[in-house]
């Protein structure tokens, strides 16, 4: 019995070692990212982070703010499947950091929050046709997006990370045979959470994923077979967005920006961040 075990264990151990050492050679350069994300932009070399700039006070008359107040509900879009920001509960309700932030914003506006769960690419594409008023969906402020959307000040700052499947044996950037982003080729799924899910489900087209550190931490906590690699690639300013093609929204934007400032100051955002992410991601890392 012992003799047999030696025969079996040694070759397997050798194989595993060989796989670890030579593993890099077999890692596909495909990197999975969500559609219409900044991670995709970054891989393609056109990620242009931006700031919201000055938000001027505007008259309430004829503004989206007036419509929202009359309606009594604020229609908020979030991604349906982005744990821990926004995800389903068995009773059909959605919970998460973005849901709590959206609910708090609506409450401070004195209206009810109503959530709509839309595909991410439909949110970032603008032209919401008034189907929802604002996006509280952890959206990064970028220059191209600013052409079609207006942004509030950031409500939190999430680091973007590279993650690899455990299967690949990659646990450091040096394990990659190519340089990111130049040597990486993007492959997209509807949302970056789907990338982690594909690896979890045992798909093998890709081993690398770029997504928010919060998503990776959440997945690792749920025993997903992935590892977080290296330092954050970049940090994103995540803000509330409004559609420029819709009703004038100067007053609503001003109000929401003011409320977010208030939520930063009174610690509401810190509290929510610690609740959902286990750490405070609401402090601007650039210190401004």
């Amino acid at each position, binding site marked *: 019995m012992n003799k047999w075990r030696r025969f079996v264990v040694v070759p397997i151990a050798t194989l595993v070692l060989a796989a670890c050492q030579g593993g890099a050679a077999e890692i596909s350069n495909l990197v999975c990212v969500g559609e219409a994300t900044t991670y995709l932009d970054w891989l393609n070399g056109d990620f242009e982070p931006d700031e919201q700039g000055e938000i001027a006070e505007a008259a309430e008359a004829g503004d989206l703010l007036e419509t929202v107040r009359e309606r009594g509900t604020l229609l908020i879009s979030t991604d349906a499947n982005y744990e821990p920001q926004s995800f389903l509960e*068995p*009773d059909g309700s959605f919970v998460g950091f973005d849901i709590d932030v959206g609910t708090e914003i609506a409450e401070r506006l004195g209206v009810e929050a109503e959530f709509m769960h839309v*595909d991410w690419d439909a949110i970032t594409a603008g*032209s919401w*046709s*008034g*189907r929802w008023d604002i996006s509280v969906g952890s959206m990064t402020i970028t220059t191209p997006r600013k052409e079609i959307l207006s942004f509030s000040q950031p409500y939190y700052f999430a680091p973007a990370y590279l993650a690899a499947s455990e299967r690949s044996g990659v646990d450091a950037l040096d394990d990659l045979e190519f340089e990111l982003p130049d040597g990486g080729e993007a492959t997209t799924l509807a949302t970056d*959470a789907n990338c982690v899910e594909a690896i979890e489900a045992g798909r093998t087209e890709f081993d690398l994923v770029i997504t928010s550190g919060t998503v990776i931490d959440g997945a690792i906590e749920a025993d*997903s077979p992935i590892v977080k690699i290296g330092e954050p690639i970049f940090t994103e300013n995540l803000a509330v967005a409004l559609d420029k093609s819709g009703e004038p929204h100067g007053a609503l934007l001003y109000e929401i920006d003011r409320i977010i400032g208030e939520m930063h100051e009174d610690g509401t955002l810190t509290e929510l961040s610690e609740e959902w992410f286990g750490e405070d991601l609401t402090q601007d890392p650039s210190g401004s």
Partner: protein
Amino acid sequence: MTAATGPSDAGTIVARLGEHRRRERITFRLKSLGMWVLLIGAMIGFLWATGNIDTEFIATWGPYILGGAGITILLSVVSIILATILAIFGAMGRLSRNPYINGVASLYVSLVRGTPLIVQIFFIYFGLPQVGIVLPSIPAGIIALSFNYGAYMTEIFRAGIQAVPGGQREAAQSLGMQERHVMSRIVLPQAFRIVIPAIGNDFVAMIKDSALVSTIAVQELLWRASQVGTQNFRSLEALLIAAGVYWVLTIVFSYFQERLEKRMARGDR
């Protein structure tokens, strides 16, 4: 029947033959049903044996996914009613001797039957807002499904109207009935009887096609199953639940459809 056997003998033979056939039919059905049970058992057994089926997930999320069946049925029922109305007008248009009306109806049928349903759904939900028509997802889904099925059913209704014997129309006309009354009182009621089984058939097909509106965030069966499945890394279980529900729904409605068909056929004897 030969001359040697009397009528009573013949009667018993026929009766026994009938009894024998009936028994054969029943054993045939039982065997066929046994095969179903065996195969389904084997499939469940196989899935079970892989040890990868999470019963806790099914218990937790099953009710939520099942809740989508109501929306699926609602979508299908409303859409089949609207599609039927569209189809009646479509069929009359297709049969109209007025070239303009005929043109409108045949364009409708050609356009809808010549493009994929998913394209029509996207067009109504994502395309129309660009020209100022913004529909929420459920109405958009209903409109897409009824518009699509209306075109297919137009052809069914046209065939149904044409299947009403010409003598019926002539008889009504010779009684001095107005043309529109001939249509509404004589031809359409008879055509209806002919097409009702086909409508039932389309209804069953629509239950399955309604899964396509999950792409525009209608929270029906498939939407719920795929959301829940990917979120919990349990796509297999979630999709099995959804597939099972669709299957049961189609079996139930097919059963009613078959009975309806038999009932409707009675008048033809």
